[in-house]
């Protein structure tokens, strides 16, 4: 493989110009993807060892790639992670070098994640998730007190956000900001806090009598949906991001787990209609509650709407918990993917983070919904659950 590191000084500039040049090439999209049944893209990985190889394999696997011999591969990925990461991607049939990059600065891990992102962008024409973050709750004993954590999406570099030693739950990212909402019992009541991770400041935005939980932030960051019981039973309420302008949105008998549609116009939530647990959606302006078609699965809860608007992931409970995905427009029945609960979409609208129980401990995993490939990403002691992917 030809390595042609000519002038490292030009790098940032070259990256921009090459991206511009690539945009003008003819690109044939392979868009036929079926949830749970799509074949992974076969690549051969060569020259990488240790941490760089581990990062590349993890990142690519959970974005729909598989690792095969050079003979069986569609793309050849060659390079080195010695000292710093550099590598190339070659289309095996045309012999065309599609990507050739070197990285410096930060850690070797971050360099490898950045290369994985460039591979995904080159082959799938979509931004990769290698440098994204997740938040989750971690409990030493599996119930009771715990803390909210933030980590890289593969579980590395976990850092505690809270130090309350109180029950904490359901972190939710503010889109495009380093800030979370979460539930904490720090004031001896389940209250919803806003917490800026860059300033370390936090504030209660919903501290009403009874239950304040399950915060979900609108895609533009301006509004909150949440579960409050101040009126006498748990229902879905919406408010401005600072908690003001509170509005009672639903009056169902068993409402829980609100999430926003990608266009910010709908709230999808779990409820009970005619004695059956269902997923439903309601306009943020209020009005009629529309039941979603979840034929074939029972007890749906915890919906999460993909950022591209196409999919709704949720948890079904049929004996065990399962992660399910269905088209948001209801055109196809849900597909049951793997055992687990609490799914949260990555910004790429194809990878989910979720938790699943093993030996009465909750572990985090990352799942590519199209190929159904998944890997555990728990690197923190205790029981880890309710992951939320930063978008």
């Amino acid at each position, binding site marked *: 493989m030809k390595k042609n590191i000519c002038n490292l000084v030009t790098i940032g500039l070259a990256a921009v110009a090459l991206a511009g040049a690539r945009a003008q090439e003819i690109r044939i999209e392979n868009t036929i993807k079926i949830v749970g049944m799509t074949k992974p893209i076969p690549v051969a990985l060569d020259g990488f060892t240790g941490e760089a190889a581990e990062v590349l394999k993890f990142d690519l696997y959970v974005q729909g790639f598989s690792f095969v011999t050079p003979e069986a591969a569609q793309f050849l990925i060659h390079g080195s992670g010695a000292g710093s990461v550099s590598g190339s991607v070659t289309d095996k049939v045309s012999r065309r070098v599609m990507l050739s990059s070197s990285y410096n600065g930060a850690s070797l891990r971050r360099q490898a994640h950045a290369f994985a992102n460039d591979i995904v962008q080159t082959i799938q024409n979509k931004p990769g998730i290698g440098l994204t973050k997740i938040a989750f709750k971690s409990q030493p004993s599996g119930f009771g007190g715990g803390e909210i954590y*933030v980590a890289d999406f593969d579980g590395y570099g976990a850092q505690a956000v809270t130090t309350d030693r109180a029950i904490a739950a359901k972190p939710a990212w503010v889109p495009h900001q380093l800030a979370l909402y979460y539930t904490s019992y720090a004031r001896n009541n389940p209250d919803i806090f806003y917490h800026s991770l860059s300033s370390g400041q936090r504030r209660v935005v919903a501290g009403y009598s009874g239950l304040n939980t399950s915060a979900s932030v609108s895609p533009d960051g301006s509004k909150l949906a949440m579960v409050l*019981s101040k009126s006498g039973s748990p229902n879905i309420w919406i408010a401005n991001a600072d908690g003001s302008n509170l509005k009672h949105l639903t009056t169902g008998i068993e409402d829980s787990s609100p999430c926003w549609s990608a266009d910010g116009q709908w709230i999808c939530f779990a409820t009970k209609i005619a004695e059956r647990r269902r997923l439903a959606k309601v306009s943020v302006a209020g009005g009629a509650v529309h039941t979603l078609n979840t034929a074939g699965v029972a007890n749906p809860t915890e919906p999460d709407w993909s950022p591209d608007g196409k999919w709704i992931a949720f948890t079904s409970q049929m004996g065990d918990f399962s992660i399910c995905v269905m088209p948001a427009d209801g055109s196809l029945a849900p597909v049951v993917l793997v055992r687990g609960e609490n799914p949260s979409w990555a910004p790429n609208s194809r990878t989910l983070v979720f938790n699943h129980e093993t030996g009465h401990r909750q572990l985090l995993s990352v799942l590519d919904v199209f190929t159904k490939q998944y890997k555990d990403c728990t690197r923190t002691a205790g029981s880890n659950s309710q992951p939320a992917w930063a978008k």
Partner: protein
Amino acid sequence: MKMNQIVFPLTLALVATLAATGCKKGTPKLTQLPGQRVPVGGTGEQPNLDTKPFTPGDANPNPNGNPVPPADPGKTALADRDLFEGMIKDAEALKSYTVHFAFDSAVVKKGEESNVSAVAAALATTAANKLLIEGNCDERGTEEYNRALGERRADALREALVKAGVSADRIRTISYGKDKPVDPGHDEAAWSKNRRGDFILLLPKAGV
């Protein structure tokens, strides 16, 4: 858009640089990554950071003071939390009246009504005492579903007590979902104990 503003001058710079260095086609791009990670709460490298001014709470200095929208039919709005500020918890006084629930149900069973009556009677003796109802679930069911279910159990007991003559102003509810089991086991024997509403007597703070 920001990207366009960056691309044009950079492209010009690239042309100049390429002319100066004579790099061949296929030069690998080198991506400079931002520095090492910093602790959460620090000010260093962060993707997509707080860009908008945000002052949660400022517009809402007293969250409990918001106007209450129309309540559900048949539901009594919850009493203000401030009414219970500083009260002393007595978890023993009403311990024997704990109410248990069927799986995934917030219905107070017929057989449990004597416990509700006993709690109402206990509250009737001392007007200054109040009540905290803790709603709990077994470990089956997802976490947030159970947090709502625990609240529905506490709310159902609260409605039953209001019907039995207790003023709604004297009752506070809290849901622990599946976070506060009395038996951490993983079988029906444990689950049936954990699906419950506990009554905590609240006494006026000392010296009042």
